[in-house]
């Protein structure tokens, strides 16, 4: 009897299971491993470049490169950090040939001071500094990351410093704001490279890129223009998606003379590399390291290129590519799909057709007379004229609203052409475009500015939000 009853119970219990089998769930034990190759630690999110005191002897260039998008401040105990297994770079092309002339390399290394605890910090965090006020130790911090930076020109190392520390992430009031204010902890992580005049900072900061992703990714919605959309919605203010999130930044300030060669214009892009790997060792019996050469997994110059210009199907290809081969992406710039979507989704907006030589200048060659090198090989870089004031698309300031500028640029506000003949496209860029009129020059996602204040001095990026307060 017991046996029969048990089987009956089992049968009832199996109703769900049968469904599971029909649905295919758990039909056998195939090896499960993570599927989607999301890699936040290697993900270049933003790049900024601007010049301070242009045209003077004190002129410097500030470079800010960000990784790890949308970090939640309260992400303990495994707080975000740079990858120990990744190579972070910022490249400079100072003669327009689409090849790097100067590269800044960063390698990080994590030391767990007390391996017997999983805690990020086991006490209030303070800082010990050297005579120059630079951090040499963060007592209380258990998971410490240090790094080496090298400047390489034409294969030669021309400046380097090791054992620099990243500050702790902003854990919360008790950990990182009790004995020592967080700003002081972070400030001690600003380092100088001897007599080179180079300053460097690497660590957590507030995510300061204003963008309304929720709306833009929903059929290119621009909340302030909701009534003009093909699918109209009530007009409302934009929502800044990055409010409340942090990011990891590398900030460099470098004497302009160190970067500029013959041309006042430099091009900048940032990459992340990871080591490839061989699957099998050879048959000699000797164990190989299984570690191969570095491969580039992420690339960023101009903001949003991989969203606005490069079609989805070419995203991975772009991330693996190098500026010197950018001719392969030319057609995407000459005839961007977005340029045809705007007038369709926003009826009444007239946008130039192809060829978009205005966008070719903005994205690939620099704008003549503004930020185009004398001898330019077209390639996608953030181009900066170091002899004049910066502002996107001549370099990029932290405060530039690049989403609005790029949407308006795609809408033609720099187009040398006429809205009365949009099919003729754009002969090139101009600052007196006939397209520079409403609504083209008013298109906006409705967000600008940031939830945390920018700093007036190095490292400029806002302090990170604290985990406790988020």
């Amino acid at each position, binding site marked *: 009897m017991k046996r029969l009853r048990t089987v009956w119970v089992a049968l009832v219990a199996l109703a769900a299971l049968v469904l599971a089998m029909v*649905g295919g769930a758990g039909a056998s034990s195939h090896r*499960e491993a993570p599927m989607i190759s999301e890699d936040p630690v290697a993900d270049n999110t933003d790049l900024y470049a601007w010049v301070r005191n242009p045209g003077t002897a004190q002129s410097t260039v500030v470079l800010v490169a960000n990784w790890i998008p949308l970090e939640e401040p309260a992400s303990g105990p495994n707080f975000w950090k740079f990858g120990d297994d990744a190579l972070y770079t910022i490249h400079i092309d100072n003669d327009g040939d689409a090849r790097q002339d100067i590269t800044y390399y960063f390698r990080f290394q994590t030391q767990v001071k007390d391996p017997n605890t999983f805690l990020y910090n086991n006490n209030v965090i303070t800082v010990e500094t050297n005579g120059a006020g630079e951090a040499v130790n963060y007592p209380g911090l258990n998971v410490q990351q240090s790094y080496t930076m090298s400047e390489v020109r034409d294969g030669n190392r021309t400046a380097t410093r090791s054992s620099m520390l990243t500050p702790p992430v902003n854990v919360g009031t008790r950990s990182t704001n009790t004995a020592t204010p967080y700003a002081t902890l972070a400030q001690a992580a600003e380092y100088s490279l001897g007599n080179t005049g180079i300053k460097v900072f690497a660590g957590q900061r507030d995510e300061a890129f204003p963008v309304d992703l929720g709306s833009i990714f929903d059929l290119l919605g621009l909340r302030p223009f909701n009534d003009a959309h093909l699918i109209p919605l009530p007009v409302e203010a934009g929502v800044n998606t990055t409010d409340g999130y942090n990011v990891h930044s590398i900030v460099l300030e470098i004497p302009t003379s160190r970067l500029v060669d013959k041309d006042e214009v430099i091009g900048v892009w940032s990459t992340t590399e990871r080591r490839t790997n061989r699957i099998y060792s050879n048959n000699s019996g000797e164990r190989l390291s299984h570690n191969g050469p570095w491969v580039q997994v992420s690339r960023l110059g101009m903001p949003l290129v991989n969203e*606005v210009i490069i079609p989805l199907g070419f995203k991975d290809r772009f991330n693996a590519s190098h500026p010197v081969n950018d001719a392969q992406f030319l057609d995407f710039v000459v005839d961007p799909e977005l340029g045809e979507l705007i007038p369709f989704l926003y009826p009444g907006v007239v946008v130039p057709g192809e060829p978009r030589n205005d966008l070719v200048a903005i994205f690939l060659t620099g704008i003549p007379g503004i930020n185009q090198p004398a001898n330019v090989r077209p390639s996608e870089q953030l181009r900066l004229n170091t002899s004049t004031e910066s502002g996107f698309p001549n370099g990029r300031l932290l405060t530039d609203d690049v989403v609005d500028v790029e949407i308006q640029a795609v809408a033609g506000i720099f187009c040398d052409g006429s809205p009365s003949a949009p099919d003729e496209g754009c002969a090139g860029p101009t600052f007196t475009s006939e397209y520079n009129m409403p609504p083209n020059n008013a298109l906006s996602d409705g967000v600008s500015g940031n939830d945390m204040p920018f700093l007036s001095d190095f490292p400029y990026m806002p302090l990170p939000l604290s985990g406790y307060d988020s």
Partner: protein
Amino acid sequence: MTRVEQIDRTEGEKAVKPSPPWRAALTGVAALVVVAFLVVRVLAGNPEVAGPPPLTLTPGEQIASLEQRVQAQPENFAAWQELGAALVQEAIQSGNPVVYTRAEGVLLEGATLAPNHPAILISQGVLALARHEFGKAAELAATVRAADPFNADALVVLIDAQVELGQYEEAAASLQQLLDLRPALPALARTSYLRELNGDLPGAEQALIQAITAGSRSGYDLAVTHSLLGDLYLKQGELDRAEERYSQAEEFFAGLGAVTLGRARIALAQGELASAVESLATLTERLPTPENLTLLGETLIAASRVAEAEDAFATVEVVEELQLDAGIVVDLELARYEADHGDPARALSLAEAAYAERPTVFAAGVMGWSLYRIGETEAALPYAEESLRLGTLDAELRLWAAEIFAASGNDLAAEEQRQIAAGLDPWVAVVKTFAAAE
């Protein structure tokens, strides 16, 4: 002014611009559909910043919010695609059949709006893998790769399908491409498995540690990777290190089935049968797969709880019958069960079907064992040899082969396999019997 004509187009392999077939169709209702597709092509899959909804939502909230969105915008392809992807992930994590069905329906809806869109093909591929439709998964991946050979996610789907179809050389070639393109967690975890299949356990361990170092935003993915490393330590008899990894997996994602199974096996290896039964009972309540139920039954036998064991086995048989009645493709786990605890002749026919579709080393092993169990030792021998062709360090494969070699009169080879097995999977010897007849 820079003219396009001045630009050197010769450098680098040219990216062929997808032809816009929608130009002529930009009128009427159809246009809306096409445009939805195009917007996603331009904007979705943003690598710089994760898309909506906010990361702070739980998977349930996220799905609810995405469900609302497809109700509000049924013509918006992106809404269907994002919901489908979230549902596939939830289906895999929960094993809930209702979610699988919903995921399939949502993805079909999206596919109708935007045929051959890479993101939807990849989600369909992931779903096919979860359902063990490996041939279908490979086809879906191939469709994506035909349009975009650099698509890393399509390579991941393809590699898994090739491994499960027993196409090991093709899988290695695909994986090498992925490693050279994007050597991050998914590539490294698969490197570990191919090394493990080929008998390189230290290399497998190294790759998994690298995978963990590379990291992920997903706690679930990190938990799965830690538990795989735990399995690898368990295989080598390092029980403490295995438990350490299972604990870490729990920190990242509570309630992973692989962790419960791993802990049951640790208990078995330590001879703690009551504790193993408890873990397996918990596991089979949530994931009543033939494999888990068989292990529960075998553990109960080892604990001399024969009546309960019979109940567990009876449950496997119910599952088997219901599966056959429903016309579902039966698999190797059922063949394993039938070979040892049911009808070996049926085991053979199940194994033959599985082997014909996917001749993996495990399918070959089960073929050999099923043949041996019905007394066809001579026919079993080539399959036993084939099951060892990669040098896979798996106690069950080795012990099956040992029995078959011994029955074929090759005692030396049998002893060699037994010695290899002795250092592997310490839980196996506690519960598995390898006798010619019961």
